[in-house]
């Protein structure tokens, strides 16, 4: 039943024009993961509120219809990892997530789901991050990710370490995957954003930590069901003591947002927001070498907007 669902969904998504789903995408070049109708590789907006910046950004990319077709099921995956209130910026901005869900429904999404595999107690994370409420208000289904029963084994072809993993059923059951990470400093991996956020869709994170964390983060990008769009929340950013933060002193108000379908490019641009050299981050360079995206920002067609 699972497998059939999966194949059915995959096939449906594959047929849908503009959908970014690529089976066996590991041998594709970075550019192929970008929907053909999107006019830019990356859109960056600065100086507005998170929801207003998203309105502008998605418009530049041709509207949400570029990514979501009528009747599709959409997974919106914010970072809900920690039991912190929104002003600590340990979790994705609620106003942004709400607006993304609204856009999905506006272009005819059948259902929108929100979840994250949290580090702190999931009930408190969902509640105190404000994300449960705004998602429900916007009409999305908020799904728990706290129990192994929700996760299913998949293989990652071509992965060096992460050959198989258990991922949340929502990844298999939905047609479109929108990743909404919040940019944060990270004690161990320098930063967490698009790619590292995928630790929130797998069950056994300890395996990643135990078996070459950088390689596992990069290996994940070879998994066939890739996010169609990354909306990087750089409105409030934890710049030190990440990814959890200690106090508000760690948070910088950068008022920025980055939209892209290329997570390597997205992470590289986000790294620069933290004044980090993208090539100093191992998982970024490994993912680039695996062909999962382009970290050479100079060669990208970037739209920059100031509000």
């Amino acid at each position, binding site marked *: 039943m699972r497998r059939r669902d999966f194949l059915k969904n995959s096939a449906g998504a594959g047929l849908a024009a503009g959908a970014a789903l690529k089976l066996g995408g590991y041998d594709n070049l970075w550019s192929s993961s970008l929907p053909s109708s999107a006019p830019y590789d990356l859109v960056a907006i600065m100086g507005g509120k998170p929801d207003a910046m998203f309105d502008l950004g998605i418009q530049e990319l041709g509207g949400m219809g570029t990514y979501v077709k009528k009747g599709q099921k959409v997974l919106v995956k914010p970072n809900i990892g920690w039991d912190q209130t929104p002003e600590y910026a340990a979790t994705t901005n609620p106003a942004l997530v709400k607006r993304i869900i609204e856009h999905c429904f506006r272009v005819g999404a059948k259902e929108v789901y929100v979840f994250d595999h949290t580090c702190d107690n999931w009930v408190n994370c969902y509640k105190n991050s404000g994300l449960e409420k705004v998602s429900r208000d916007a009409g999305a289904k908020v799904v728990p990710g706290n129990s192994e029963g929700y996760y299913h084994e998949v293989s990652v072809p071509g992965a060096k370490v992460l050959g198989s993993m258990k991922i949340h059923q929502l990844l298999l059951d939905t047609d479109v995957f929108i990743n909404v990470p919040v940019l944060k400093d990270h004690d161990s991996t320098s930063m967490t954003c698009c790619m590292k956020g995928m630790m929130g869709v797998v069950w056994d994170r300890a395996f990643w930590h135990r078996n070459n964390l950088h390689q596992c983060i990069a290996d994940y990008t070879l998994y066939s069901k890739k996010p169609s769009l990354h909306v990087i929340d750089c409105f409030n950013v934890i710049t030190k003591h990440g990814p959890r933060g200690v106090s508000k002193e760690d948070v910088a108000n950068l008022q920025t947002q980055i939209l892209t379908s290329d997570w390597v490019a997205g992470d590289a641009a986000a790294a*620069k927001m933290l004044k980090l050299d993208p090539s100093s981050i191992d998982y970024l360079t490994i993912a680039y070498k695996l062909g999962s995206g382009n970290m050479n920002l100079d060669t990208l067609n970037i739209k920059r907007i100031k509000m």
Partner: protein
Amino acid sequence: MRSSALSKIRIGCSIFVILLLTATFVDISHLIPERYINISHFLQFIPSANKFISAGVAASTGFIIILVLTIITGRTYCSFLCPLGILQDIFSRTGGSIKKRFRRYGFKKPQTILRYAILAATLIVTMTWGIYFLTLLDPYSIFGRSMTFFVKPVVLLLNNLLSHIFGKFDIYTFVQTPVTLFSPAAYYIPIAILLLVGILSLANGRLYCNAVCPVGTFLGIISKVSLLQIKFDGSKCTKCGRCAVACKSSCIDFLNKDIDNSRCVGCFNCLKSCQDKALEYNFISFKKPAKDARIGKETGIDYGRRNAISVSLLILLGLKSQSSSAQNKTAPVPKKASTVKEKITSPVSPPGSASIVNFTTNCTACSLCISVCPNNVLVPSVTEYGLTSVMQPHLDFRKGFCAYECVRCLDVCPTGALLPLTIEAKKLTQIGKSVFIKDNCIVNTEKTACGACAESCPTKAVHMVPFEGKLVIPETKDEICIGCGHCEFACPTTPYKAIFVNGNPKHAAARKPVNTQTDIRKPEEFPF
């Protein structure tokens, strides 16, 4: 009063009490607010008395109300309010439906020596040595453990089944929740006591309450002189014996028209059973009734004593066969197993307990804190605190961690073993300190990045410092560590952790982490 309404009121009240208390122990979604949980156990005798004595909490006057109630009405606590008593009534009804004679009691001689010996031992041990007998025998705690250990897992399984079914229809009202089991040795005593209570009550009514339970015996002494008592109206009684058959406490000697009020739990079933209206619950008249020599039926078997022996045997067995629960056997095997065993010199007691001594002196192991902990970090101890403190909870950071923003266990503790702290005070209470074992750490053994401990640390007492090349490795800062154990929980090494929390026998004050304003500002231009 002769009416059967009393027994109906009793049944109504007891159903309410047992549903309420069961709900507090099996509330798997943690929906019941702390203040309602506190109301639920306000009138529980031992927890309330202990809280009053240990903490002198003015609010904990529930046991005084029970004492007054007992002086006026007799041992009605045992029938109306005691969850274990009510549970036994349920067992007795079940027994009756299996075999009718299980609910036909008849007068029996009191277990005088046994019950007073247990009460005396409990009092002496509690006053001179420690709370150990109360931990074993307090009815509220026995009930609580039975719920947490045996009923809650069943509720979880049902919940997970529903979650599975509803999940198929895309409905996520029921959330899959892992069934957490304790170390096998922690189950021996709760199983033994529940079996004892269950078997006794199945065919012998309230024998446990009148032979073993120290609270029952104690309240029985008071109820001997209670103002309201059930009495025979000699002129009406036809000695049909229906009352004696109906009496769960086997305390009605109808041939002599005498009721042993020290054993009467005030269930009022006798009033209902008496067709001659010869029994009356009324204020006592101070005329001394003529007493004949008692003619009691000898059973020949001393269940109480038998079971006391079997309990002690089971206790011994339980303590002998403790297993190391520390290893999570389902964890995947790492490339290299860690080699250095954690040197734990002290277990970790919950915040709000101030010290292990204070905690183990006042905890009756009712397991309410275990049930309300949203992170499942509290588990019943086996030998961690020493043999005498078996079942009293400690924090097991392999099972979970103490959430930074949570004070739920402190807020609900019925006995005062845990006293409330504000969240701000709890965040500065050091229950233990993290200890880093470099030789176990992935960063050192595998030369790959990890940092699971540091990313979890709420105070950054565990933080990363430069190691070889680009690698960073954990370092600990004792003075801001509060011992929440998130680092130990997150550490991926097996079988031994590369970071663990060693308990503070006496809780200390942690310093507030100091932080400086970030120097990253919003850039004028895009940096890319």
